[in-house]
């Protein structure tokens, strides 16, 4: 959505600009006429520069020439106490940043990656705050998550949460990051805005995305298996497919591929599209009031049964079922069941989520502005997955 504002131009520093949310925010801010500085790492294993990395994303975002002209890329690294900036760049950013959009984060849920997650989400944030200490910045906009340790029985409110109920190191780190930000901002008199999206997927209208994790990966794997066993059935008499109970319906060419997805409880996954996330944050940046924590969530979660049925319908696969099992049950599973259990494991808490997100504060600003979160329908799923498959899961995007 192209937004036209009467607000005066501001000077932003955006971290995480090569990430999914950060890139969309950086692009939207520059389209709105703001000056945007991006802090982007140069990857040691790749020969591409920070500028190259951003330019490719800017192409993909189809930013206007005017918006691109308002963006400056700074090669830097949140891992370093001085952000690895040159002296000139550091001076410039300290003197010219009015507001920070902090979107850089590690989004891994893995306990094994705890150190890496905390390095980025806590130490990296600490480095950013130390760097900006005493600078001209008056506002910090931080991208957090709706899952910062909410209460499973009571609605999760748009307030700082007590430190309990975190399901993984990611949630834990984001909770700590909020506390760190609160302390810094209250000490320095900086206005803090915290945005807590739930699980973000591609553009619900166009399907566009360049991240194919979370919602996408199980679908990608199922599509892979479908192609693999279709080929086996059509070209190799189905020797391997048969051993796994996979067959082809000769009448409608539907592949029968038995996979049992299991869940024990919960209402489903809370999914929000990227354009809702971006539009909401831009709108909420200027929300009135002193409490500035906002849930960017969907009022309706999507049950696992819907996701499984959407996938079967799109890929013409039968035999995939989502089953409810009791907490005590641990049924024997086939290799494919087991494989997909592994895929779903990190997301299982979100699939089985019982948390309800109260977004009334965000809604006060968003509803009058006409910003609504769409329900996750089959047509949106189809749009998103068609884009994913057409782009060969990102291979053809040139990013």
């Amino acid at each position, binding site marked *: 959505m192209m937004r036209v504002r009467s607000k005066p131009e501001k000077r932003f520093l955006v971290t995480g600009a090569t990430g999914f949310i950060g890139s969309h925010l950086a692009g939207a801010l520059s389209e709105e006429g703001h000056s945007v500085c991006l802090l982007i790492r140069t990857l040691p294993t790749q020969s591409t520069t920070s500028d190259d990395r951003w330019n490719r994303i800017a192409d993909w975002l189809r930013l206007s020439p005017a918006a691109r002209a308002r963006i400056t890329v700074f090669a830097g690294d949140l891992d370093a106490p001085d952000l690895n900036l040159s002296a000139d760049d550091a001076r410039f950013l300290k003197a010219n940043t009015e507001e920070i959009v902090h979107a850089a984060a590690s989004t*891994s*849920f*893995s*306990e*094994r*990656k705890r150190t890496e997650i905390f390095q980025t989400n806590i130490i990296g944030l600490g480095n950013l705050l130390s760097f900006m200490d005493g600078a001209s910045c008056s506002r910090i906009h931080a991208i957090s998550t709706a899952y910062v340790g909410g209460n499973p029985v009571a609605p999760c409110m748009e307030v700082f949460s007590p430190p309990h109920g975190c399901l993984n190191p990611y949630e834990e780190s984001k909770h700590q990051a909020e506390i760190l930000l609160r302390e810094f901002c209250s000490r320095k008199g900086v206005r803090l805005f915290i945005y807590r999206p739930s699980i973000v997927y591609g553009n619900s209208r166009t399907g566009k995305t360049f991240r194919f*994790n979370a919602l996408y*990966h199980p679908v*990608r*794997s199922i*599509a*892979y*298996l479908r192609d*693999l*066993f279709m*080929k*086996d059935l059509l070209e*190799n008499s189905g*020797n*391997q*497919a048969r*051993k*796994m109970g996979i067959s082809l319906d000769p009448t409608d060419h539907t592949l029968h591929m038995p996979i049992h997805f299991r869940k024990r409880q919960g209402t489903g996954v809370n999914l929000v599209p990227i354009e809702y996330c971006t539009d909401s944050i831009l709108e909420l940046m200027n929300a009135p009031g002193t409490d500035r924590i906002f849930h960017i969530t969907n009022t309706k979660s999507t049950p696992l049964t819907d996701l499984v049925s959407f996938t079967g319908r799109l890929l013409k696969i039968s035999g995939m079922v989502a089953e409810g099992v009791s907490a005590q049950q641990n049924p024997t599973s*086939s*290799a*494919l069941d*087991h*494989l997909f259990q*592994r*895929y779903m*494991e*990190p997301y299982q808490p979100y699939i089985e989520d019982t948390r309800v997100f109260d977004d009334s504060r965000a809604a006060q600003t968003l509803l009058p502005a006409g910003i609504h979160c769409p329900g996750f329908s089959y047509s949106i799923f189809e749009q998103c997955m068609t884009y994913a498959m057409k782009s*060969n*899961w990102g*291979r053809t995007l040139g990013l």
Partner: protein
Amino acid sequence: MISREAARTAGQCRHYSMCKIDYLGTGLCPAGAENHFVSYYPQGRMDLVKAIAAGKLPVTQRLVDIANTCTLCGACELQCHFISELRLMSVMKELKEHVNEHLAAGNPVLPEFDDKSLRRNDPLLVELREITGPRWASNDPAITTAYFSDPSPVTIPKLPRAVVLPKSVEEVEGIVRVAKKHGVPFMVRGNGSSVMGFVMTDGILVDTQRMKTMDFDADNWCVTVGAGVSAFDLQKEAFARRYRVNVAEPAAMVCANLMCSGIMSLFSTTYGTLDDGYVDAEFVSPEGNRFRLKDNRQPDLYRFAREDHPLAGICTSVQMKLYPMTADEEGFLVPVESLQEALVFVRELSIRRIGFGLGVLGADYISAFMSPASALARAVKESTESTLRAPFMVMVLGDAKDRAAVESMNRTILSNDLFRTLMLGLPNLSPVSGESHDTLTDILQPLGDADGQPLSHLLGRSDLQPLIEAALKPSPETHASAVPEDLRAAYTRLYARPEMTDLVWLNMFRILSSRMGREKHLLPLIMYVPLDKPEVIDALVSGLKRIADSLNVKNDFGFVSPLDLGKRAFLEYDFYLDQNDPDEIRRSRMALGAAAELIERASASVNGVQWIRYTLNQGCCRKEYLLYSP
């Protein structure tokens, strides 16, 4: 005129001697098999081309013969590519062309015995030729050059005054006496090769290549082996009789191994090491007298002392033990997440006497062998470590009962069938260049990062095998697709043979480790370690890694193999270097020096740590004297 490309390829020869044995069953260099001097084998020809390119080797009578006897049959091309990825046919061709052009231009050929410094035939050589016959003793530079140097960074190159190839123990006695009479030093090489810099001489170089006798004694489960018999050739003959021998690398000579270090292999967990493997041996003393190990009046070669030891004699034959095999033998791998876990597990297997061959192997070791190309090996190593979370694997060679025992220990098992599937389908598992479509690795990658059991556990499920097979399409053709097009047919034929993916066979014949030096020359640091102190092994491994990393020397874990029911083990840690890069040579020398200090310190303070350098010339000592010496 030797081209720069040929000279570069020639300079890359690692002297691993794999062109001197028919380890792929594809035939042996006919000129080498007939003439035995290293110069007639592809390895020697590589050294000759390197010397010609450097302007250091004139066209001599022998060089003409060496060039003429090469039929360009191509047997060496596959043998060399298999372990090193080098393409050496162009080198072989250029050697012939160089000689032909020289002759065509009417240039002179230096006669074989034209020794200008002596103004006449070297009297030493004359006497040596009397012992072996004129064909088998030479000081022609085209012969001696192939014995001049090796890829080790500590080698001090020396050109032998003469190279001699005895056929019998009597001839060895005669050679030693001639050396003594002339006051000339001598050095012995099993198959003429050197890789560690120990066997350089400017005196007489005795190459035992021609002493190829093998006498099997089925009644006593023994075989008596001459000094020119390679580990591969002996294993081949034993295998044909349904026996197994405990031997070292395939091109290594059995007798030379006995003298230098004793046998270190995964089979040592049951067959032992040092004196465990042989019944008796025959030697020729430095005075030229024959003696046997069992003789009372001779030097006590069973003793061990932690000190550098002079050569007690030339081992001319050894009576080795033969071991039985069963029909249900199988190799399999147990993936583990850390070295500590691997050490504890392999020790438990050893204590429980599970498996007749055991070893902890690093991902580098396994991926190097599985992959016919080094770029593919790097991708496989990366996947093994990060996606499978299996930086180490315990190799178990055992029978059906051993497998059942490991299964009962609730361990993930990657069976030989799965190993075969992965190896034959490897190019489809880890495409080196970006694929235009999803592969199994793309699909499994996100699971590697997740918590819970490592992905290797999933891979070990037998009901997942159809998926893996459908994804990888394992076949000799698929495997061969990873090598240059002109070699694919040969690789396809090779991998149609079941033994090439049979873990027991590959370990018996020591083919599994043959690709470790493919990217760079390998400098193995081998020591005996106390397996009941995994923290000591861990400290040694991390210490060696720190040393090499600090000097920017490529390094990796080699293997650990238990000994003596889990009390002790071999540890091999490997440094690597580009043998032609002076800066790498300098840095690897420094790394070796620091590594030596580390090992000596550990050896002085921890019981059970013994450096292999002290087994040089003490390889037939009693195992207990070494393993339990203070």
